[in-house]
């Protein structure tokens, strides 16, 4: 069973005051997310990521299309007891303490009293907020609020968790913590669907990603496939700033960075390059097959869409 099946969800808003005209926020979207995977929903700002998430959460009504979540119609209230959601830049009732807020959300999610008490304490500990559980949220920093947000999303033990830009506005340490937490959720067997425009996070975490731009799906695939080896090229890195003349003869493109040199050359010249470095008594640091980065794939898809739009107009 798929965790999420999006079957042609589409959203068009009517804009303008006097003369209303349609503006497409999301073109018919077809997407499937399997159980137990971390799925990244990538796109620049305004691409339609949040609109999609809001439709799946029942906050915005689609113009057309439908979706199934955990095998049920996405509008089924029972589905919501099994999903967790962290909105982008979450804002919570700031007159409540972290403990009160989680308890309230636990009540709304139907977590029974005794279990709720235990779950709230567990969640506070898990996101490292036990010490400040009695403090009102208005005194919390952005990073602390994000942790509360994550805690409320997984409090009721959901099978599927939606995160909208979970790393947005966090410092490197905070981002690392969120990344670790998402990995833990996967290990616990949960499905994670998260939207982001930070590609390094997606590359490090996701099993599969989808790229959306201007409300249109541009590509879907496993990260491992999208970042597959570029045929016939290797990356060689060595210590120092010296670039032997014979290395250029092998067809290497060399770049000096600090006290290392990075060279890209044809795979069939790999052994010859190693011989050159040995001969020159240069210390080899690494030699790896060259892979396409997710960023390169992302940029390619966006540029492709811009070219298509340009041709259309």
């Amino acid at each position, binding site marked *: 069973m798929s965790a999420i099946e999006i079957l042609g969800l589409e959203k068009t*808003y009517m804009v303008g005051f006097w003369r209303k005209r349609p503006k497409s926020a999301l073109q018919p979207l077809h997407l499937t997310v399997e159980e137990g995977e971390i799925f990244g929903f990538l796109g620049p700002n305004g691409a339609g990521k949040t609109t999609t998430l*809001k439709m799946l*959460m*029942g*906050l*915005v*009504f689609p113009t057309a299309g439908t979706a199934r979540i955990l095998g049920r119609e996405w509008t089924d*209230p*029972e589905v*919501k*007891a099994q*999903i967790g*959601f962290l*909105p982008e830049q*979450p*804002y*919570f*009732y700031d*007159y*409540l303490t972290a403990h009160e807020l989680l308890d*309230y*959300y636990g*009540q*709304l*999610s*139907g977590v029974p009293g005794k279990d709720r008490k235990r779950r709230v304490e567990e969640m506070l500990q898990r996101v490292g907020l036990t010490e400040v559980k009695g403090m009102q949220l208005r005194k919390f920093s952005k990073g602390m609020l994000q942790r509360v*947000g994550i805690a*409320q999303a997984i409090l*009721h033990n959901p099978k599927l968790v*939606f995160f909208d830009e979970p790393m947005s506005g966090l410092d490197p340490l905070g981002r690392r913590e969120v990344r670790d937490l998402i990995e833990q959720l996967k290990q616990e067997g949960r499905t994670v669907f998260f939207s982001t425009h930070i590609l390094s996070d997606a590359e490090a975490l996701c099993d599969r990603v989808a790229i959306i731009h201007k409300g249109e799906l541009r590509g879907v695939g496993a990260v491992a496939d999208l970042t597959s080896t570029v045929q016939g090229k290797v990356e060689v890195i060595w210590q120092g700033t010296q670039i032997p003349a014979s290395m250029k003869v092998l067809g290497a493109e060399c770049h000096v960075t600090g006290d290392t040199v990075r060279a890209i050359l044809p795979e069939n010249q790999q052994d010859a390059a190693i011989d050159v470095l040995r001969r020159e008594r240069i210390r080899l640091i690494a030699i790896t097959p060259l892979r396409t980065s997710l960023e390169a794939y992302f940029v390619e898809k966006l540029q492709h869409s811009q070219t298509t739009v340009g041709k259309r107009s």
Partner: protein
Amino acid sequence: MSPRMLYIAFNTFREAVRDRILYNLIAFALLLSGAAIFVGQISIHIERLVVVNLGLTAVSLFGIVIAIFIGIGLVSKEIEKRTLYTVLSRPVRRWEFILGKFLGLAGTLIVNTFFMAIGVFGALLYVVHKFSAPDALILVALYFIILEFLIICSLALLFSSFSSPLLSAVFAFSLFVIGSFADDLRGFAALTTGVTRWFATAAAYLVPNFSALNVISAVAHQQPLGLQLILQNTLYALFYTAMTLSAAVLIFERRNLK
């Protein structure tokens, strides 16, 4: 009644209690009751009349200000601050949210009225030294004031479900003022003819009839209030509130939370 609705109601009540502005309004109401005592002392033989009039009017006005002030933000503030997202992404139906919010605000006002009523009775006892049987009618007036609050709460909530807080406040306050003259509006409708009569009658019956719920003057003058009036007003207020809340739910059920 769903438990989720009660949780939302309790949270709404908790928010109001932790809101300092609410405390200020209670303080003002108590201050006004204090003023009633002062006026009562300088009035000759009409101390009771002045204290009951002033006290109940203060209870009504302060309650209405609180109802409008909090009611207009009940939904729009949650949308604006996006706190609604984490509520509606749970197994909470939109109608449960609306009714929970209403119950929370109504509960806040009832508790608030209870404390202000203690102030009114305290002020009365201070002036007349001994309660008499007609003073029990003050309880009926307070009951009607609470019915008035239920209508105002539902109206504020209705406007809050589709409009900005500022416009909601203008709409709710305007309806309160027009509704306070509902009897006059009905009288005016009876004097007109043709299309004007049709429109005036429709408007007169559409606006909430607050004048029927205002028995402050009658209670102050110790005039009797019939059981029929209590029953009629109760049914009217509950029906009006139910209709208004249904409209709020219908609008909110279809609203995109952008």
